[in-house]
């Protein structure tokens, strides 16, 4: 009696299991980024954009490979590399094959190493790293590997485009560089020094400084130094709460020149700057929002607004990640063999709805795309950020920026 019960249970379990695998299983993407702490807002907004893009671009169009939907699984890494590695392990143990991460290059450096090791040791459960925002150049140079794909332009590409705009302004004679004290902040400072030196050697760098990331309560002393240095312009790679704090403080304490940034938009930053930042804050990004690049993008943005009335599409590259991944999976004919999917991604040319063609450079897995320099303003803004009336207006576009830039990547392919 007992035995037959066990047998029966076993049979039922087997039936249940095979039934589950008979259904089209979701393609899961682990989203590992800060969902609590000082950078929670940046992470959460990214998560919303991922969930929306997966649903809008893939699931509503019938999924990939005959009906498999994309599913975003969120993991909170508290912006700590250590925590991220734990979450990576959890994600892999759950059978997830795609890891998306973007906030902090420190985390990305840890993840890319861990994923490389894991994939070498466990050929049966390999994963791909979809890096959508960590822009430390090392990730596609010395530290590159076959599993890592970067969908954002790296700090060098961005600085190359940004300095083009800076050197065109004859009034700028002295610049002050300030950033967060970790690999990304250092990369921005190095790139700014290099490109300014090449393009306008007469520009003097009157300050080059790093501050602790996510720990500064009050940026007033830093803005005093910027003022005292006599700088005409400020360059910063700060993001999240650090960008907001620095920008507000610099403007409040009497600095009058332009501020060139990477990430001074969305997540409450645009609303907080409001009128004070008008015409003075410029940022470099991919994807034009104002004017919007295509009707398709307009429809997508409006649908996003319907779902998240207070939200922003401030990282439109997330849509490229989802679109390119879907295309690669379709091309490979499988979502489980990530080597095939990676081979599809390599060298892929993809028509982005946010403007222009994008190209995944095969030699280093760096996405080459149009870069826009925009200004914070309330004029000619169709899609504002933070429902503030203010948004980013594209002023200049560099097509396929740094297409031929050199890379030190020596990629080992499986």
């Amino acid at each position, binding site marked *: 009696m007992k035995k037959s019960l066990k047998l029966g249970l076993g049979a039922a379990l087997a039936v249940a299991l095979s039934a589950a695998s008979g259904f089209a299983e979701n393609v899961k993407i682990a989203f590992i980024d800060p969902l609590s702490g000082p950078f929670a*807002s940046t992470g959460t907004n990214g998560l919303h954009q991922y969930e929306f893009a997966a649903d809008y671009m893939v699931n509503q169009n019938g999924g990939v490979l005959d009906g498999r939907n994309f599913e975003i699984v969120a993991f909170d890494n508290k912006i700590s590399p250590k925590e991220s590695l734990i979450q990576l392990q959890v994600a892999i143990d759950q059978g997830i094959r795609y890891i998306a991460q973007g906030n902090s290059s420190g985390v990305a450096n840890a993840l890319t190493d861990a994923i490389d090791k894991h994939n070498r040791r466990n050929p049966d459960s390999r994963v791909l790293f979809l890096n959508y925002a960590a822009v430390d150049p090392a990730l596609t140079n010395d530290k590159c590997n076959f599993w890592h794909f970067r969908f954002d332009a790296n700090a060098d590409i961005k600085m190359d485009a940004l300095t083009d705009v800076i050197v065109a302004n004859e009034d700028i004679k002295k610049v002050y560089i300030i950033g967060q004290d970790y690999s990304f902040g250092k990369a921005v400072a190095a790139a700014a020094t290099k490109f300014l030196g090449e393009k306008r050697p007469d520009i003097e760098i009157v300050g080059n400084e790093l501050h602790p990331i996510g720990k500064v309560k009050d940026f007033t002393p830093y803005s005093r130094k910027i003022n005292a240095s006599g700088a005409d312009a400020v360059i910063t790679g700060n993001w999240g*709460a650090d960008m907001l704090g620095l920008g507000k403080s610099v403007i409040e304490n009497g600095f009058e020149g332009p501020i060139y940034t990477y990430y001074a938009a969305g997540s409450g930053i645009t609303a*907080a700057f409001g009128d004070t930042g008008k015409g003075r804050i410029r940022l470099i990004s991919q994807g034009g929002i104002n004017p919007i690049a295509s009707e398709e993008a307009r429809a997508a943005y409006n649908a996003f607004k319907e779902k998240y009335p207070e939200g922003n599409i401030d990282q439109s590259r997330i849509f490229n990640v989802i679109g390119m991944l879907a295309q690669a999976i379709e091309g490979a004919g499988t979502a489980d063999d990530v080597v095939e999917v990676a081979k599809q991604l390599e060298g892929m040319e993809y028509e982005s709805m946010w403007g222009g063609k994008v190209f995944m450079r095969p030699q280093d897995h760096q996405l080459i795309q149009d870069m826009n320099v925009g200004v914070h303003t309330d004029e000619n803004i169709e899609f504002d950020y933070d429902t503030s009336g203010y948004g980013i207006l594209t002023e200049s576009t560099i097509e396929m920026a740094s297409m031929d830039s050199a890379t030190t990547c020596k990629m080992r392919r499986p």
Partner: protein
Amino acid sequence: MDLILVNLIDGLVTGLLLFMLSAGLTLIFSMMGVLNFAHASFYMLGAYFAYQISIYLGFWMGLLIAPLVVGVLGAGVERYGLRRVHQYGHVPELIFTFGLALLIEELVQFIWGKNAMPYEAPESLQFTAFSIAGNSIPAFKVFMIFTSVLIFIGLLYVLTRTRVGMIIQAALSYPRTVEALGHNVPLIFMGVFGVGTALAGVAGVIAGPVLSTFPGMAFVLGSIVFVTIVIGGLGSLWGALVASLLIGWITTFAKAYNLRMEDLLTTLGFTKPEPIWDSAWRDLWTLTSPQIADILPYILMVLILIFRPYGLFGKRDA
């Protein structure tokens, strides 16, 4: 020289802000023996409440109402939470306030979301009060200085010159005797907790527009407040003031001037190892004062704990 003056003013603003937080905390600690981990959370609540009120009634009503709401909330927490936990000893009290801090942070994120709120200084204070050598001092900062100084004077007056203050001071050291004399000590405790949290609320109201109002604001200020009251001496209002100003100035000056460890070590007669990037001492040699500015208060605390465990102005052992 001009920059020194500007930094003195900036440090004063930071210090006075810290004082408003630590004054309440130090009173609460000395009276009830409870380290209120949720103190900075009440500061955050102050900022958020004031932001919400300012949308409808303007900044000034926010300044008036928000601290009152926070104070009432704080008194409620004491009356219905802490007082019940009190009988089980200090550890459950600590855990209670710790949990409360987490709860408040989640609650704030639940209601207002994780983005920073566009909480701004009032129109009437959005101008430059004066400037020193191109460095403008916003009028709002001057307003912050005046508000905190007024609050300090008010507190000092109430605590040392009025009957209520005397009873509070007596209840601090001899609660049983005060109770035997017919005073309602639990009520005094509740009042002090309420006033302490209301002070944190005021700090939040006036700091929100400057330091930005976001769910992490309690976290970034949380630990430094404890450092302040340990340095100042537990239960001492003057201690809290001096320690706050000290911390404000130390961090401001350390950030404003690039003092380099290299210079210090060279003056002390050490020679720089070459090449520096191969040396085991690289991190020490390349250190600059802005990098360590925010841990200087902690170093000061450790020194104080070693050489004067009861703090600068404390009267009893911590």
